[in-house]
């Protein structure tokens, strides 16, 4: 009986006939216009994409074997190409290469399995409660106890055991979920470790530790940068009593993966993994800059709404990202960090990864 059911033609694991977008998200009714299904990208774009993939494959080598060599020889080419977007079919592999997670995986054989199977975590119930509330509109995570939800649970539980100081904090699920759409559980786990412990860039764990110290620091830095780059917006926000904790906490805690269009989030992640958190500041500033004329006209409540619902044209990666790249923040970020630490004391970081940390 069971066998027969499988042989029958049944639509996928999710009993939902709702159409999906190219990333696997259930399409919103809004986008579901009659031409929605046929209005794909034109043929010449596919050809261009194919040429790009060939170029990328050459740069990476089989399974990433040529990557390190290429990066050493032509770092600027790599940076430029990543900023244009990593081809979707190579994204998972390249993310592991640029984040340093591949090295962590190779150095720690069997560790992930140990964490998943043998250890218990104090956060298990917290994690379970949020599993169905993480990318609920993505086909991979929709099925109750399905492979997507199980992987998400395993990665988050493993991390909560691996780093008991951080444990599990809401928001981490969106990071893990995004990664799981591009790589295996074990790979996603080590990428999460690479990010939070700072394998290549400054560690992110402070975003999730008790007191959320890094969220507070980033919001402080963003507030100052915004006032320096966009004084009119800054002045208007002061008048209307808007502060960055009202709209930008999610940007940092989930690196734009919580509520932004997925194709934009992916492009931001490409650059984020290669260049670090400063792209989050730049994209945030670019969004405000693009919408400045509208934002400065709005009163408090409409402002809050607008800051959570940016217009579609503002969120086109090919408009927003070039704008973001043109905003220079590195030097001021460093100074503002210093200023923040002078005021609030230096946060405590784990020593093990600190030595590797590049600023």
């Amino acid at each position, binding site marked *: 009986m069971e066998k027969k059911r499988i042989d029958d033609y049944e639509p996928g694991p999710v009993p939902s006939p709702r159409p999906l977008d190219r990333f696997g*998200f259930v399409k*919103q*009714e*809004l986008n579901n216009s009659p031409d929605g299904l046929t209005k794909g990208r034109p043929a010449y774009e596919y050809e261009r994409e194919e040429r790009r993939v060939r170029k990328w494959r050459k740069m990476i080598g089989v399974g990433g074997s040529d990557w390190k060599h290429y990066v050493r020889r032509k770092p600027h080419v790599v940076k430029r190409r990543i900023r244009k977007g990593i081809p979707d079919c190579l994204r998972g592999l390249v993310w592991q290469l640029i984040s340093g997670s591949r090295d962590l995986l190779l150095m720690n054989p069997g560790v992930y399995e140990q964490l998943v199977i043998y250890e218990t975590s104090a956060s298990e119930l*917290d994690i379970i*409660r*949020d599993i169905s*509330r*993480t*990318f*609920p*509109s993505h086909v991979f995570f929709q099925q109750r106890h399905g492979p997507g939800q199980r992987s998400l649970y395993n990665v988050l539980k493993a991390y909560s055991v691996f780093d008991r100081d951080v444990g599990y*904090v*809401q*928001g981490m*699920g*969106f990071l893990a979920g995004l990664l799981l759409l591009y790589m295996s559980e074990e790979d996603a786990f080590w990428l999460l470790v690479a990010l939070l412990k700072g394998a290549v860039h400054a560690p992110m764990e402070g975003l*999730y530790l*008790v*007191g*959320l110290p890094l*969220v*507070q620091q980033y919001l402080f830095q963003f507030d100052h940068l915004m006032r320096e780059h966009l004084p009119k917006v800054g002045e208007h926000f002061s008048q209307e009593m808007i502060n960055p*904790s*009202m709209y930008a*906490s*999610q940007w940092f*805690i*989930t690196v734009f993966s*919580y*509520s932004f*269009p*997925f194709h934009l989030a992916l492009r931001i992640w490409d650059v984020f993994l290669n260049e670090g958190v400063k792209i989050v500041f730049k994209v945030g500033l670019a969004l405000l800059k693009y919408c400045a004329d509208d934002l400065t006209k709005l*009163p408090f*409540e409409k402002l*809050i709404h607008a800051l959570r619902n940016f217009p579609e044209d503002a969120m086109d990666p090919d408009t927003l990202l070039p704008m973001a790249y043109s905003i220079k923040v590195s030097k001021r970020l460093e100074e503002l960090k210093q200023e923040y630490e002078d005021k609030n004391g230096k946060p405590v970081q784990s020593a093990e990864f600190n030595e590797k940390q590049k600023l």
Partner: protein
Amino acid sequence: MARRPDEEYDYLFKVVLIGDSGVGKSNLLSRFTRNEFCLESKSTIGVEFATRTLQVEGRTVKAQIWDTAGQERYRAITSAYYRGALGALLVYDVTKPTTFENVSRWLKELRDHADSNIVIMLIGNKTDLKHLRAVATEDAQNYAEKEGLSFIETSALEATNVEKAFQTILGEIYRIISKKSLSSEEPAPANIKEGKTIVVGGSEANTKKPCCSSS
């Protein structure tokens, strides 16, 4: 900036929604402000915000509601939003006893960070899950009386008592505020704006709408 007629109100009341993660705070808010319930809702990261203007005791009141992430660690960010709040809706899940047991911790949180005269209402949500109920109405009722809180049970999914819960707390706030401004020579608190009394029609959303449109 000139206020358009549909934005005029007599009073502006700031209210916070607090309680453990997953008890249904965000859906209570969307049911009250947009008459929507989302089965596929995401966990709240940080704070969310919504308003609704409605009639309370014959006055036009704008309720400005801050919805907060429930996980303990987020209090580092969310507790800042208690300041200036005139009311707090403290929500637990009637099917999850721990969320009720944690109510006392939330009360302490309010005592530490909110104004001392904040009006607090205890809300037992998810009454639609009748077969899973694990917190008796009577227990919560007794607890609320002991702590001097008002109390109601709601279902954001079935839209049961949601309107009543908000009406009740806004009414209580109104009575305290109007008593204060009568008995005291001091000006009313800064977060209350006086405006022209106008009747705002159609603010009551009566038709049930399907799921919200978050991605």
